[in-house]
């Protein structure tokens, strides 16, 4: 190759996956992630072998980390896809740098989330009974159940995100096919590039379809996140029985998705020295969005408190329980981390500091997890009959599931970084060519 094309736009991006080997930091990271995945295996084996009694759950606390983690992960997934989809539809410049890995984040997060609906079952090996297949016992799923809705939502989310992500990759895979020197990687990339030639016709259909699906993802995400909320809101549990739950879940979900994308963006920029592609403008913009999201959440929290106060004794009791009873810590910590902490992003200097942005996004992520905890666990403490009481204490197998899914997520991300272009190269060329359309 000549000098010119090494400087060629996207050359650097393409060279990452084509590099023969990665340095020790990547190896260390993937090793650590691998260790966490082993922890996940342990965490999944426990309930299967001995029963979900290994968790702290009981009656009335029938759910524990299983649901907390699920709601957290699915929120991240939905937030990230929603963000990516909006960028595509708005044809926003940010998409050039963000979309590819934002979609990746969504995909990996939804995979992590998808583990829990299966694992939380008393008999996980029978999860497929929620799928309507013609069994010899001729009993069908029960479609009025929000859990059934969620089954379809998750499956759809996984498939659509995967398709969207892959479609976006095809032209870049072609680039890799054509840049790669080793025949083996040429063949592999070539196979997945499906013989992309970048003809006018190719591009036309590709772009149309891509935009349409991005547009379809919007309602899908909104409905899906609402479905997750319905799993709580449609029950009689006083703390959950609330039509505003979907709003809460969507808003907090977006925040967690944003935070994750911002966090990963900073990691990639530092780790792969992609300053040229993920520039300060991008980071600053996302920081602003995160700040906005946290303000919206602040309003939501206030609004919930108000409506509960106005909604009669039972709602008031459950609110008081969430605020001051045994799980109050989670509630206040959530407010501190989601609402208060990000306020530093008002300051220009804070926004321009990668460290501060990273910390802010991390704090929002942890905060949203605590918010899930306070809703799921804290919600189950207030019941109709005072005689029903008890408490919930997470056990090690539950922590193992949380840590394990984090490891799984990191592992996917590292492999993605290693073998695929983390930034859409054709979009980059497009942008640098100036034809912003």
């Amino acid at each position: 190759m000549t000098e010119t094309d090494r400087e060629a736009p996207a050359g650097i991006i393409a060279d990452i996956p084509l590099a023969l080997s990665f340095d020790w930091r990547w190896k260390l990271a993937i090793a650590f992630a691998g260790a966490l995945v082993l922890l996940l295996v342990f965490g999944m084996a426990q309930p299967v072998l001995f029963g979900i009694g290994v968790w702290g759950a009981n009656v009335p606390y029938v759910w524990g980390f299983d649901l907390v983690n699920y709601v957290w992960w699915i929120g991240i997934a939905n937030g990230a896809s929603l963000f990516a989809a909006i960028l595509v539809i708005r044809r926003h410049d940010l998409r050039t740098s963000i979309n590819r890995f934002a979609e990746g984040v969504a995909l990996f997060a939804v995979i992590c989330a998808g583990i829990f609906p299966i694992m939380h079952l008393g008999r996980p090996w029978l999860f497929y009974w929620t799928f309507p297949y013609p069994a010899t016992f001729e009993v069908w799923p029960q479609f009025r159940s929000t859990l059934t809705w969620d089954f379809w939502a998750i499956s759809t989310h996984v498939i659509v995100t995967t398709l969207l992500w892959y479609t976006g990759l095809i032209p870049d895979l072609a680039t890799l096919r054509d840049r790669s020197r080793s025949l083996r990687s040429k063949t592999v990339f070539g196979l997945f590039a499906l013989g992309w030639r970048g003809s006018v016709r190719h591009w036309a259909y590709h772009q149309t379809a891509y935009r349409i699906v991005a547009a379809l993802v919007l309602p899908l995400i909104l409905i899906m996140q609402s479905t997750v909320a319905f799993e709580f809101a449609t029950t009689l549990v006083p703390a959950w029985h609330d039509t505003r739950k979907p709003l809460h879940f969507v808003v907090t979900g977006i925040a967690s998705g944003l935070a994750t994308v911002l966090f990963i963006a900073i990691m990639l920029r530092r780790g792969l020295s992609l300053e040229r592609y993920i520039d300060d403008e991008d980071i600053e913009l996302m920081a602003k969005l995160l700040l906005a999201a946290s303000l919206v959440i602040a309003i939501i929290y206030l609004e919930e408190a108000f409506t509960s106060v106005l909604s009669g004794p039972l709602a008031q009791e459950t609110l008081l329980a969430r605020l001051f009873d045994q799980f109050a810590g989670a509630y206040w910590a959530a407010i501190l981390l989601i609402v208060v902490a990000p306020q530093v992003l008002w300051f220009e200097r804070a926004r321009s500091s990668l460290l501060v942005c990273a910390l802010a996004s991390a704090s929002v992520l942890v905060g949203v997890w605590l918010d899930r905890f306070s809703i799921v666990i804290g919600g189950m403490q207030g019941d109709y009959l005072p005689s029903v009481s008890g408490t919930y204490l997470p056990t090690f197998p539950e922590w193992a599931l949380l840590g394990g899914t984090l490891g799984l997520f990191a592992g996917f991300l590292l492999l993605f970084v290693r073998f695929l272009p983390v930034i859409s190269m054709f979009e980059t060329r497009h942008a640098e060519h100036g034809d912003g359309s």
Partner: protein
Amino acid sequence: MNKYDAYRTDFAALTGQQGPRLWRSLEELADTPEMRRFIEAEFPYINEARTDRRTFLRLMGASLAMAGLTACGDPTVAPLYSQPRGNWADALGQASTFASLLDLDGYGRGVLVETRNGRPVKIEGNPLHPASLGATDVFAQAELLSLYDPDRSQGAFYNGKDVDDRAAPRVLAEARAAFAPGGEGVRILTGPVTSPTLRALISAMQREYPAARAHEYSPIADDNSRAGAVLAFGRPVQAVHDFSRADVILTLGADPFGDMEGHVRHARDFADRRRAAHSGGMLPRLYAAESTPSLSGARADHRAVLRPAEIGFFARAVASRLGVVQDGPSDVHPMVETAAADLSRAGSNALVVVGREQPAALHALAYAINAALGASGTTSRYIEPLTAAETGHMASLAALAEDMAAGAVSQLLIIGGNPAYDAPADLDFADLIRRVPVSIHLGLYRDETAAAARWHLPRKHALESWGDGRAFEGTAGIRQPVATPLFDAFSDEEALALFLGADTHDGNDIVRTYWRDALGAADFEQSWTAILADGVVPNSAAPALDVSLQPDWDQQLPSEALPGLTVLFAPDPSVWDGRYANNGWLQELPRPLTKIVWDNAALIAPATAETLGLKTGDIASFNAGGRSLLAPIRLMPGHALETVTMPLGYGRRAAGRIGTGVGFNAYALRTSHAPWIATGVEVVRTGEAHALVTTQDHHGMEGRDIVRIVAPDQAVETPSTEPQPSFYPDYAYEGHAWGMTIDLDTCLGCNACVIACQAENNVPIVGRDEVARGREMHWLRIDRYHAGDVEDPDTYFQPVPCMHCEKAPCEVVCPVNATVHSSEGLNEMVYNRCIGTRTCSNNCPYKVRRFNWFDYSPPDPEPRNPDVSVRPRGVMEKCTYCVQRISAARIDAKLEGRRIGEELMTACQQACPTRAITFGDINDPASAVSRLKASPRNYALLGELDTRPRTTYLARVANPADPEGSG
């Protein structure tokens, strides 16, 4: 219809001769004219052409034949067994029911035992038995589990070493061979004996060996009432209370519905009278003066919390108002006036009951009051003592201990009982046993006494042995075995016969022989079979004695009050005196008032605890008379001040895998001269703490309409059974529509329903730790609420089964149709379809659903109801309204071409002593449940949620006397 039946019937008749008799079965077999009439009365449909009577005969013969059978697995699964002989019941795999008898401290409670293929699977009350009337208490239900207890003693042992099973007869024979002339030094120690056969054997012994002595001991036995009788009437008589005629009742430290002999019957009579009053009539009023909250106290309309010593003064005050005594203390308690006024108004329909803890003088006083009111003969009558120990059980044991200490005892046979554990601490009985040259212990377990005795012989369980016993009012009942002994063991009678070298030592022969003599040989077989079928000896109730007050009946009440606290000892509502310590059902049964499981605690008034700086869970050291005991505290609202109640029966050292080491042993503080009330006890807090596991942490109703209370003839406001407008269609339930009412006015919170449900539905035990995690599995729980001030709160009980809501919130959230509605309105739980999302439990406002967090299924040989699935790990379960009974009833009804009638009962309903639970078809306006649902007291729990529960409650009726005392 089928010509081979004749052959089978003959065979059945043949096989029938030996084994025990089927309850209400022999009538058919005998098939005499009067029996025919009986059958036509009992089974009207039997004459309809389509049913052939032979089917019955075959059935019955079958069950007879089966009774002689060893347990042989579950018939419903492969492989199929061809029994060598005509055991039709094996093929039938159907229930056969036998009448038998279970005793508690010697007093018999008639039961019906349902067996499958020679395995008892369920115990119910015997409707013909006066102490049961078809109901049971928790202990009778739990005997089933004890029968299958793997920790039961399975063979003889000598000095703690196993010996050949066949050694046992030899041991007893050798002991006899070594008898001194006249039986000098021969001693027999039994529990309270009401059994005519056993008493005949004992008196036979005393004829043959004049110097031999028989002793009776039970740590719970009521000696004071008998001593009181001696004071009052100059002779030891026994009082029998008749609550069916009592309009005003005053209990003095007594719990006639909880732990007094005959409690099941008392409760039933009381409830019946209240029910009668709801449809017009005088509503009986209950006054309770007590130190420890009791079931009766919780039900009382007026309750006075008094220190043990004050109860005597209270009684005297009442007595003086009634003119029974001249010098009565004044202003003891405001309740004195109202109670006295009410009692005198009720006159011969008044009743004063005294607890076994109270001194003899107080009993005498009560007898005098009852006499003065003219109540003797109506609400209470007097009979000859049913147990032998005239001098009282404690004295009897003390005498034995004296002889043993003096070395005057050479051969000691301990039949049943566990004196090494439950004898008063001052006797140091275990050590005395070790000093006896030949000591033989016959026991169900290798317990503390077995360890102390030289020889231990395995004892047959009541359900395995022949015997008899008398009810609290004297009616004799026969105990027939319903299962072949699981091990090579002896019944009390058999052991005694062997010990005395009687010519026969076969339980069947012994009992038959006694009763042949007692009933007279004329057509004995005929009447005997009838007796076995019914389980009771007709009109054998003890005759009322004509007693009159002694002139010097009025003794001063002991009023020495030492400094320090007073400790009250009480039988435990779950393990009684300790004999049920190894029974998992009872250990996991929440104690009615404290909801503690797998433990006991020293109960103490909050105020007193505060002054002592103690709180629930703190371990305190109790010191008295040089003995000391460490026990955890549990604050008990409504408990007397400066008083501690210690439940007996825990701290067992050799109870078995379940009971050993559970709780603290209150016997360590008990002395033979003050067995019930220990004064001058010093309490020191240790700083240690002990986690008491309970199933209910909050005790108030937090101002919600959960348990409703109404005045007599008043309706509940906003009954909340009226369906509210709904988007959902109204499903029409043609045919049957099952529903239930639970009458909170008659519910005493005794737990019988809970344990009956556990037995019927294979509900597993999960153990202390799992309960601590909030994972108890009871399908039916009893919520207990306190209202009012903590010094003397009102206490309410509310049994909570599945409500079978017509708009069930649990069903709609299940993704796999694992919980759905039946065409008869049952909320069904399909275990084999459940994948365990637990959302249903989440969405159940009553939280009655239980989840199998681990594999809780009981291992064999647990008693198991073959009609109910054993639930695997990871599935939800809950009350089914005993759907297996509904199905059985439906099938029987269809086979016999009739409608399902009131014979269909849920397990909880059948066990309930007060008939507080009513179940049936709400589509049938004539059914009992429909009539009750029409009551103005009927309301739905959390009805405002419009879940339309099929289970509704009848409000409790508060019936306080108004200040004017006009009743």
